[in-house]
């Protein structure tokens, strides 16, 4: 392979970069990938050490500003209600995730048509089904067939995770109210799967890393096969800018590795740096051809930043619920309030994602409730009442795109290589706040129906930017979108974007499954049209 001029250069080895690298390599295309992070070996996860929980507030902190590892870049979120969270490594943020793996609903692709807000995606749920299915097999998804919230899906690759006392308790609450629910689709193996992945042992705290490999990441699911197929993965390689020619074609990426500046050329470049990193790179790539940033003639690069503003509603129960027995993010969910019902006073909807707890330190510090157990004489008593007696219902709302919510380049802040850092500016919208009001009230209702003696609410926690979307959205109209329906930049014919930045709307579900499916669809298009690109 000619590494000097491969067919494709991918920037970012995370959820979508890994998927696309694998897909293109299976077609015999030559691929180089630049990743600013490194491999994280299962032995590096700390969940088998007595002080494992400390990593949540240090080298495994979800906020890169707090974690501050060599691979991380800072994000100024002082003017954002929500902090963007991410992990920089081979596997990207799937190194540091709960692996809850729902798909967008069919309606999520047509919100303009159905509800008169935002814009439609330029493709449908049905267009993505083959890629959802392929991705489910690659990632190794467990779940249960027959979910009434979705059109019939192909058989889940593995049976569902056990619900345990925790999941069964909240299921009774939903049943008592006549509200629908379902066991989670999870990128967590329930049988031995893939290349050495063990079945989940219900050890909880997937977000701090899974030493057994039961929880999927792009590092486990896609990269081994991609590397065998010849993909060249360069780690510790941080891209500063993309260089464009007079023909508006992108020619190369300029990057730092081992303290030195390098340049990597390619026929075609794919950016997969997430909904913050991708606009950062484009906005940092200014030239006389693109004075406002690469591929930004629409002016939309960085705009329409979407998260999933959430509220954690926590119920405390008299009985021991084994609240930390099992994957933290994958108990049951309810999409009962997912679709628009205008009598509620808002459009679109939200999901309930029931989440588990972690270890004793997490409980002492308040867990998802954010209410630390008080110090003093009552401490031990309250700890006993709460630890493993709690049940969390996360209200995850659909975030409508608004241009004032955006990623820009911070005028001062840089990373350790001197590359200008991104700045997030974000406020929670009116529609979302109404949704949160409704969701918090309903979550309280279901917790009480399940038997909770006490319920608390943590509304829009700052550390809630798990899903980064919308900052270079897709569409057919070059004036209203950054990339075309295949992920190809309107302004730069050999540049593709494949991460959460291309999302037109956010849905109200965790987004990795859908962005990976979209990325695989883009890869399929590249393979089919490679000679024309």
């Amino acid at each position, binding site marked *: 392979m000619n590494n000097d001029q491969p067919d494709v250069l991918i920037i970012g080895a995370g959820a979508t970069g890994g998927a696309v690298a694998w897909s293109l390599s299976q077609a015999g295309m030559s691929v180089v990938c630049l990743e600013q992070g490194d491999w994280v070996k299962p032995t590096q996860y700390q969940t088998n050490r007595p002080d494992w929980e400390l990593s949540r507030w240090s080298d495994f902190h979800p906020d890169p500003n707090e974690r501050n590892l060599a691979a991380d870049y800072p994000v100024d979120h002082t003017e954002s209600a929500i902090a963007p969270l991410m992990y920089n490594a081979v596997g990207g943020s799937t190194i540091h995730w709960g692996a809850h793996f729902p798909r967008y609903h069919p309606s999520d692709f047509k919100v303009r048509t159905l509800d008169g807000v935002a814009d439609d995606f330029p493709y449908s749920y049905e267009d993505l089904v083959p890629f959802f299915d392929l991705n489910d097999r690659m990632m190794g998804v467990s779940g249960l067939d027959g979910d009434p919230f979705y059109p019939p899906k192909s058989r889940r690759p593995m049976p569902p995770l056990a619900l345990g006392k925790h999941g069964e308790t909240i299921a009774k609450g939903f049943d008592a109210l006549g509200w629908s629910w379902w066991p989670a689709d999870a990128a967590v193996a329930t049988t031995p799967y893939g290349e050495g992945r063990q079945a989940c042992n219900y050890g909880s705290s997937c977000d701090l890393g899974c030493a057994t490999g039961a929880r999927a990441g792009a590092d486990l699911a896609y990269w081994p096969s991609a590397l065998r197929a010849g993909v060249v993965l360069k780690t510790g390689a941080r891209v500063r800018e993309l260089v464009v020619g007079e023909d508006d074609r992108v020619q190369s990426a300029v990057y730092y590795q081992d303290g030195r500046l390098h340049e990597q050329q390619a026929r075609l470049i794919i950016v997969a740096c997430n909904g913050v990193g991708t606009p950062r790179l484009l906005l940092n790539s200014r030239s006389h051809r693109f004075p406002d940033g690469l591929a930004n003639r629409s002016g939309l690069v960085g705009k329409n930043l979407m998260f999933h503003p959430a509220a954690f509603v926590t119920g405390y129960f008299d009985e021991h619920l084994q609240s930390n027995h099992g994957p933290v993010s994958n108990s049951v969910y309810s999409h009962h309030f997912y679709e628009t019902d205008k009598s509620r006073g808002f459009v679109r909807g939200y999901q309930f994602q029931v989440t588990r707890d972690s270890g004793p330190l997490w409980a002492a510090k308040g867990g998802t409730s954010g209410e*630390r157990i008080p110090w*003093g004489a009552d401490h031990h008593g309250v700890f006993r009442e709460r630890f493993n007696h709690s049940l969390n219902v996360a209200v995850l709302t659909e975030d409508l795109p608004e241009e004032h919510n955006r990623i820009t380049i911070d005028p001062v802040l840089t990373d350790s290589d001197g590359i200008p850092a991104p700045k997030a500016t974000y406020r929670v919208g009116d529609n979302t706040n109404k949704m949160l009001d409704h969701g918090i009230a309903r979550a309280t209702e279901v917790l009480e129906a399940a038997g909770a003696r006490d319920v608390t609410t943590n509304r829009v926690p700052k550390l809630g930017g798990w899903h980064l979307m919308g900052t270079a959205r897709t569409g057919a109209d070059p004036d209203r979108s950054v990339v075309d329906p295949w992920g190809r930049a309107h302004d730069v014919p050999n540049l593709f974007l494949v991460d959460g930045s291309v999302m037109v709307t956010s849905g109200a579900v965790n987004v990795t499954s859908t962005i990976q499916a979209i990325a695989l669809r883009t890869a399929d298009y590249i393979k089919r049209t490679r000679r024309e690109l």
Partner: protein
Amino acid sequence: MGNFLTKIQRSTLVDVLDRIIPRTGETPGAGKIAIEYLETTAAASSSTGRVVLDTLMAIDVAAGSGHGKPFADVADSAKVSLLRVVEDQYPAVFSEFVDLVYDGYYTDPSVIERLGPDAETPQPRGFPIAPFDPRIVEKVRHIGPRYRST
């Protein structure tokens, strides 16, 4: 003298820790459990060291202004109230201090052992859980399609 605190500071800190997480019955307080963690962490990290020292100094100042004596000599019955005063005056640093105490206490092997199997490190053993019973979804399965057609 240890690596970070004077003898008097260490003694005061142990006393304070036992007010944050007190000893009750067989359950040890943080004075015995967390002191080593705090001292080691404070010595290793300047920001943590500052939290510990700022808290100790604020306590000393409050003890002097409120009782005219060092914290160690304040009556046991008044010590918690004094710490509440410091917490009200310096909420940010005191909150960080309490977090540090919890960090040290709830990651100590003897505390984890006392809390039982559910508090143990999750890997490599994992936790027991009853297998999935598909009958639990029968009620929902029969409600029919709930997705919105496009």
